[in-house]
């Protein structure tokens, strides 16, 4: 079998590079992880992603792929066992539609929560709740968005964890409460219990401290 060289450029606190870690681990792909300092990007990163100069970048046998969903699809098509995307074209389309919804609509709203206050913030929270209700509609009674096991859309939805940590760091009520979003609430517990997935979230305390600094809270953690 040919020598396979897989490298992942990422950061510990980025949900986007964490997505790739989940995908690679689910497929049992051996890879070298390179932690980037985004305030001092390595020449390698700039060389591999000259267009966006961003992580994550996957480099497979010297060839770079950037953009988290593009990388995830590449991983799924290159290592075909344990598929992340459904095989049925319509189900695949639904997974891609909702993943795009998460990045294009839910994530920008989540970022707004931490930089708004008062009435404006309340409006953003309502917006997020509405969007998460849409996601609940897609989850329905399933264990995961991917069905019995976690898949593309579950991985894409990891940004919900980042939103919740940011809210906790700022002393806000958690938006994912059992009463308003029961299916998603249960889903999140299962996701965080999953043997592979739970290795691919930042350590809670470190993530909380990081969020507190990033979003300007002066309350020190104990």
């Amino acid at each position, binding site marked *: 079998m040919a020598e396979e060289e897989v490298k992942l450029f990422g950061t510990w606190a980025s949900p986007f590079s964490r997505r790739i870690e989940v995908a690679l681990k689910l497929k049992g792909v051996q890879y070298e992880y390179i932690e980037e300092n985004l305030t001092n990007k390595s020449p390698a990163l700039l060389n591999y992603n000259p267009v966006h100069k961003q992580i994550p970048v996957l480099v497979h046998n010297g*060839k770079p*792929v950037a953009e988290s969903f593009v*990388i995830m*699809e590449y991983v799924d*098509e290159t290592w075909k066992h344990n598929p992340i995307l459904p095989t049925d074209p319509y189900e695949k389309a639904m997974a891609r*539609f909702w993943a795009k919804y998460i990045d294009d609509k839910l994530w920008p709203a989540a970022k707004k929560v931490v930089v708004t206050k008062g009435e404006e913030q309340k409006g953003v929270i309502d917006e997020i709740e509405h969007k998460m209700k849409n996601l609940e509609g897609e989850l329905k009674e399933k264990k995961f968005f991917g069905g019995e096991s976690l898949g593309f859309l579950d991985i894409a939805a990891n940004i919900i964890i980042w939103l919740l940590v940011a809210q906790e760091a700022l002393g806000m009520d958690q938006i994912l409460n059992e009463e308003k979003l029961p299916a998603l609430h249960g889903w999140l517990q299962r996701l965080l219990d999953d043997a592979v997935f739970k290795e691919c979230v930042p350590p809670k305390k470190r993530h909380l401290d990081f969020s507190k600094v990033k979003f300007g809270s002066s309350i020190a953690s104990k």
Partner: protein
Amino acid sequence: MGEEVKLFRSWSSPFALRIVWALEIKGIEYEAVFEDLSNKSPLLLQYNPVHKKVPILVHNGRPIAESFVILEYIDETWKQVPLLPEDPYERAMARFWAKFCDDKVLTSIWSAFIKQGKEQEEALVAAAENLKFLEKEMKGKKFFGGERIGYVDIVLGWLANLVSIFEEIVGLKIVDERKFPLLYSWMQDFAEAPIIRDNCPPRDKMIVKFKALLDAAIASSSSSSK
């Protein structure tokens, strides 16, 4: 075999046009349902409740929205005349560039058209930087897909007819032939391809529409400035 394919579109949506082109290139029979976006049909709202937009492809009663998602669905369902390459790395490159086209190229060129003053200047600079990447990616190929039109060509296809319309309305050069010779000749080749040429909204109607959009944007920006 009964196959029912409907495409909800508007007469001018460049996103819906992508789907028209894909269906035509693959020779897929379909019914076009033209929507008046100022008065959306109950069916549209039922088929795309999340975004309430076109395009929507409805295949045997099942709706799909978002042009990239629809294009991939079409390519996976009707395998003749493939739009995406077969090799996983080439597919990744096509998907990367398609996203770049919408996130960066389209956004900056739209801003260059619709904004004024300093915002317009900055958008033009951003557009030129983005176009440089595309120019490099052409690498002497006739189309981004190689010898024939593929996924990225379809996604970027709006550039071929809309940019000259924008340039005419605002009197500015956005895609300079001297700076972007490969891209410029791609625009000609793409626009002249029979399927594309036969499936483009009428230019005069487009000029009226986009001039009206620009006038409205200028009016609202001057009424809100002090």
